[in-house]
Structures are given as C-alpha cells and as structure tokens.
C-alpha cells in the first residue's frame, strides 16, 4: 500500500477521509489510537486475545460509521474510545471476566514516555490521573468500577451494599466533577496545580 503522510491532518479530517473508504486513513487512526485502545481494552478485559477482538471490532465500527460522524458534536478521539469501551464492556460482561484492581498509576519520573507511548498520551494520562486523584474517594471508586471494571450500576449497588440511587448520584457527581477538573486543567502545563475546592 502506498503510504501517504496524513500526519498533518486533524483526527476529524482523517475520519472524513475514512468515510470515503480510504484505508490509509483508517490505518492512520489506528496508528494514532490503537495503543490507547488496546491499553483500555486490556484494562477492562484482562485478556490480550479478547482485547484484540474488542479493538478490531471497534475500528471496524469506525470504518463503517465514519460517514455518520459529525465533528461538531464530538471529538474523533471521544468517538473512537467510546466505541472501544462499549465493545470491551460488552465482551467482559459476556465473559464474566471483570476485575477490580485499582488503576495502576504511572510511576512519577519514570524517565518519560515508554516505547508504546507518545508524548501526548503520556501528558494526557498524567492530566486525567491527577484529576481522578482529586475526586472524593467514593466518587472515584464508582467511576473506576463502572468504567474500568465494566460493572452495571445495579451490580455496583449490590457489590458496594448501597442503594441504587446512591450509586447513580456518585457516578453523576463524579463525572460532573471530573469534567470540571479536566476543563480547568490545561494540557501539558498546569495540570498538577489547580485547587480541589
């Protein structure tokens, strides 16, 4: 396949090319988000073979759905990771494979991005992890068990011994607070600095 350089294009522009059945564009999206997608799928599924299935299904959904993607509504990265997550959660529920280990944090000063990491992904990870750390424990627990553990809200209520309404409130408040924290943090610069109140 002739390799065209799409590196200068925005994610959304690459999705638009993908919508025209451009395989090189799909490959470019995979090169940008495949590692993050695989990391997420492994985190949810705890199984590399299943994670591969989830990533493959999700990128094929990107391929099929690119023509219906409307960039005014969502970032392409949001769309892609939403597809990956949905697929991983569906698979983990089918496989009854959920785990609840806490999210391992990246080690501070670990010498910068690893081989599988780009600088952007590395900074983004630190930014989101920093925001997560600022959430009240119960909200963070609800978000992590739901998003990384693949538990439904009813399963969470049972597991944590709380009323369903409490779980819903924690997820809602946690996600709203996380959004606020992330909105206030500036990529790559002041993400460790802002106040928690």
């Amino acid at each position, binding site marked *: 396949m002739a390799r065209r350089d799409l590196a200068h294009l925005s994610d959304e522009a690459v999705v638009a090319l993908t919508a025209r*059945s451009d*395989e090189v564009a799909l*490959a470019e999206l995979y090169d940008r988000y495949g*590692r993050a997608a695989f990391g997420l799928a492994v985190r949810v599924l705890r199984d*590399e073979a299943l994670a591969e299935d989830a990533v493959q299904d999700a990128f094929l959904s990107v391929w099929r759905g690119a023509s219906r993607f409307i960039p005014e509504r969502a970032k392409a990265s949001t769309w892609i990771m*939403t597809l990956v997550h949905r697929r991983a959660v569906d698979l983990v529920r089918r496989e009854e494979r959920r785990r609840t280990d806490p999210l391992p944090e990246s080690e501070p000063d670990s010498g910068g991005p*690893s081989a599988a990491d780009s600088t952007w992904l590395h900074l983004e990870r630190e930014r989101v992890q920093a925001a997560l750390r600022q959430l009240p424990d119960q909200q963070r627990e609800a978000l992590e068990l739901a998003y990384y553990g693949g538990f439904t809200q009813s399963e969470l209520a049972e597991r944590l011994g709380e009323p369903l309404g409490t779980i819903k409130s924690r997820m809602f408040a946690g996600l709203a607070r*996380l959004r606020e924290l992330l909105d206030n943090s500036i990529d790559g610069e002041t993400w460790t600095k802002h106040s928690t109140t």
Partner: protein
Amino acid sequence: MDETLHDLSAAYALDALDADEREAYEDHLAGCASCREDVAAFSATAAELAFAVEPGTPPPALRGRILEAARAERPNVVPLRPRWAVTAAAIAAVAACVAVGLGIWNVSLHDQLSNAHAQAVQHVPVSGIPGSLVVSPSGSAALVVFSMPSAPAGKIYEAWVLRDGKAIPAGLFQGRPGAAFVPIQGKVPKGSKVAVTVEPATGSAQPTTSPFAVSATV
C-alpha cells in the same frame, strides 16, 4: 419514568447500564434534546478516562487484520439496492432520521430537507426497537435502527412485510452498535406493517419466532 431516565446520562456515558436499561435510555434520548446534550458532554469526559490507562502494545499483526477486514467489507457507503434508490431527498430523509436519533442533528442537513420531496416521505414509528421505518410514496422503505445488539450466535434478524394476514420475507440483517440502515426488500404498501424476528442464520421463509419489533400501519 422520565424523571429517572433523565438521571441516567452519566451511567450511560460510563457504559454502566445493562442491555435493557441502555435500550430504554436510547429510546428516551431520541426524543430528549437536553439528555443528548448531557450525554455528549459526559461521553467526552468518560472517554478521557480511557486515556488514564497505560497504553498497550497490540500485536503488530492486529493492524493488518483490521485493515484486511475493512477491505473485505462493503465499501464505506450506505448500501442502496438499485430498486430502493428512489430520490436523493428520500435518502437525505433517512440520513436526517439517523442524525436525529444519534443526537447529531446538523443544521445544513435540516435546510436541505425543507423541501417538498422530503415531506412526501413517511416516517412510521416502530415499537420494540429504537428506530423508525421510512417509506417513500412509491412504497420503497428502509428501517433505521440504533444500537441493535448482534443477533444471538447462529441467528440473524429477518424483516417481514405484514400484509393481508401474510408475512412476506423482506431481507436479513445483522445488529451492530450505532445506527444501521436496513433496506426493505419489496414494496411496503399502504395498510401493511413491517416486523422483525430472530431467525436461523440462513433466514426463514416464514417467521419461526414472534416479532420483537413491529411498525405502525403504513
């Protein structure tokens, strides 16, 4: 009921609803603009959680497998059989219907639709699945469905035109996440309905299960 549904935007964005709850909520979303706004915002935040995870190193072969599978699929366009290819306006109507259901209405498309051709297209509600039936004046039709789960292993969805007490096979399709566009084979005349059943993978000549989705009378 609406009160509780309005609360589910965060759970939906986190994929923390079970299949039934998700389906009911997507039904609700189709008609609730403020919830679509909430979901769009929460989904962006939820997707950020994806980036808190250490990226992985997928096997190098995965990239090739994905590209090969993409190539093997039909081209990335809405599949239209020639006999269904009615007017551009009808197609635009279907696209708009998908866009509304997904909460991604866009203004320019809306403007394109404000013409007589599009208004001649009939939108028929479907119970049992989030989606609707779109019928042209000549009886050509398509189902537009959102987030149909895959049919069980070894099964497929089959559409039927119900007319004069008979069920006429109208095409096989697979569920999938997101929006799906299912051209109905044959005509859907006035007074008929469209139904969907689960059938063995090769399809059936007559329904072998009860319909789980039925349209209103066209």
